[in-house]
């Protein structure tokens, strides 16, 4: 009888291994293509971003699994929120996430995205990422090593292949819930301010 995190791991894997997906052949084929080719937005949002370069370069070589970096949100499938997430970054993450085209997935690294981690009582970070954006896959650890990130990607690929990774639909269906939470911490204007804003918004032209 395994206890502790081994038991937890078993529960997680059991959920992944269950065969209860109902998808027609076209969906199955499209999901297979989506699974094989994952473009990751190269945007470091927290301290965990330091684990991403070794994941994508020669040492761990994520490209052999079809996972490669994308330069712009327009071309990306996956955004990684790598660790703690300050209010200032959250604005940018929301803007970036909404710029990505469907289907899109969100991978959260580290314990800070689960419950705030060691920043639990910080004055300028959020605690549960899930309240603000839908998460497809958590990779736990502080920080997760590149091996764990790769394992998280493989689990995500499995979910995509079975058609279960549908957080983008969840975001569209429950947009009011997410928007309410976002406005609670960021104020009415959730989008980040840019240098051009002074003449586009109040007080400007």
């Amino acid at each position, binding site marked *: 009888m395994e206890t502790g995190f081994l038991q937890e791991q078993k529960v997680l894997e059991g959920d992944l291994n269950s065969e209860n997906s109902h998808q027609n052949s076209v969906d199955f084929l*499209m999901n297979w*293509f*989506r699974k*094989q*080719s994952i*473009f990751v937005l190269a945007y470091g949002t927290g301290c965990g971003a330091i684990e991403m370069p070794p994941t994508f*370069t*020669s040492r761990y*070589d994520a*490209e*052999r699994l*079809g996972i*490669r*970096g*994308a*330069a*712009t949100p*327009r*071309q990306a*499938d996956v955004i990684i929120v790598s660790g703690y997430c300050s209010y200032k970054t959250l604005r940018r993450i929301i803007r970036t996430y909404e710029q990505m*085209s*469907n*289907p899109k997935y969100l991978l959260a690294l580290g314990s800070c995205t689960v419950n705030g981690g060691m920043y639990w009582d910080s004055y300028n970070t959020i605690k549960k990422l899930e309240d603000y954006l839908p998460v497809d896959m958590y990779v736990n650890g502080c920080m997760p090593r590149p091996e764990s990130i790769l394992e998280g990607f493989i689990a995500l690929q499995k979910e995509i292949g079975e058609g279960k990774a549908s957080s983008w639909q969840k975001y569209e269906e429950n947009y009011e819930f997410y928007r309410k939470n976002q406005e609670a911490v960021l104020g009415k204007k959730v989008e980040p301010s840019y240098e051009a804003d002074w003449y586009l918004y109040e007080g400007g032209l």
Partner: protein
Amino acid sequence: MILFDLLFMLLVAYITGFLYYGLYRNITARFQRRLGPPVWQSFLDSIKFFSKEESISHGWMFYLGPVIMMSGAIMTLFFIPLFHTGESFKGLSSYGNLFLVLYLLVLGALGNALAVGASGNPFGVMGVTRGLSRLFALELPFYISVIALISVSGSADIVCIAASQTEWNAFAYPLLFIAALFSFVGMMGQAPFDVVGAPVEVYSGPASEFSGKFLALLMSQSAIFTFAKLVLMVHLFLGGASGFVELLAKSFGLFLFVIAFGAMYGRFKTPQSIDFLLKVPTSIAIVGLILATWS
């Protein structure tokens, strides 16, 4: 009959182009001491991008740009014969000569510039500015070499140029070949002339605003266009081809050289690459032109 020919040429270019692009990623990975993606990875990427939803609109020019690029690539392919012997797979080459192909080579860049200009993405505009200024420098040595070849073989017909080589033009006129090869490395978007789509510098350059189906179209376009350019170089300098095995062997050899060249060298800045192309390959091409047409 000609319709069947054209469709078959398109199919060959599509498959071979994606195969070459996959091999490019795989071989570059081996240069960097990693395993690299499977050979069909680029094909999977393009199909996945076709299946993505669109969420942006920048007006009709933005939609038309990739179409112009695609039609430019396909027309270039159709006006270049696959083989210089026999009757089949000549495409439309009897209706247009090398001058037309040289015109069509830049149509893609033009479509790209129009679409990116309509999108207004600053990174895309930066990439296009770099691309167009580099294009002028690229064309000069290539055009000089091609003009020298035309005057030597006495015809602007690609089939005639390919057939008139007793020994390969690459060995008969090495200076012209070297000059054209510098341009060719740039046309294939390889280092040291890859400042246009330079990753981490201008994000994806001209492609940064394209997503989903546009990007998939761009990937297919680049695969077809790569094959067309390789076939053109094989016909101009490597003695043409009279069968599929010969064509694939010669074009793959050339492609391998370009990849290796790109993997070995660092990246020039835009002014550096224009400076270099206007000085070194152009001088080589002019000397080659004089030597080839002296008598």
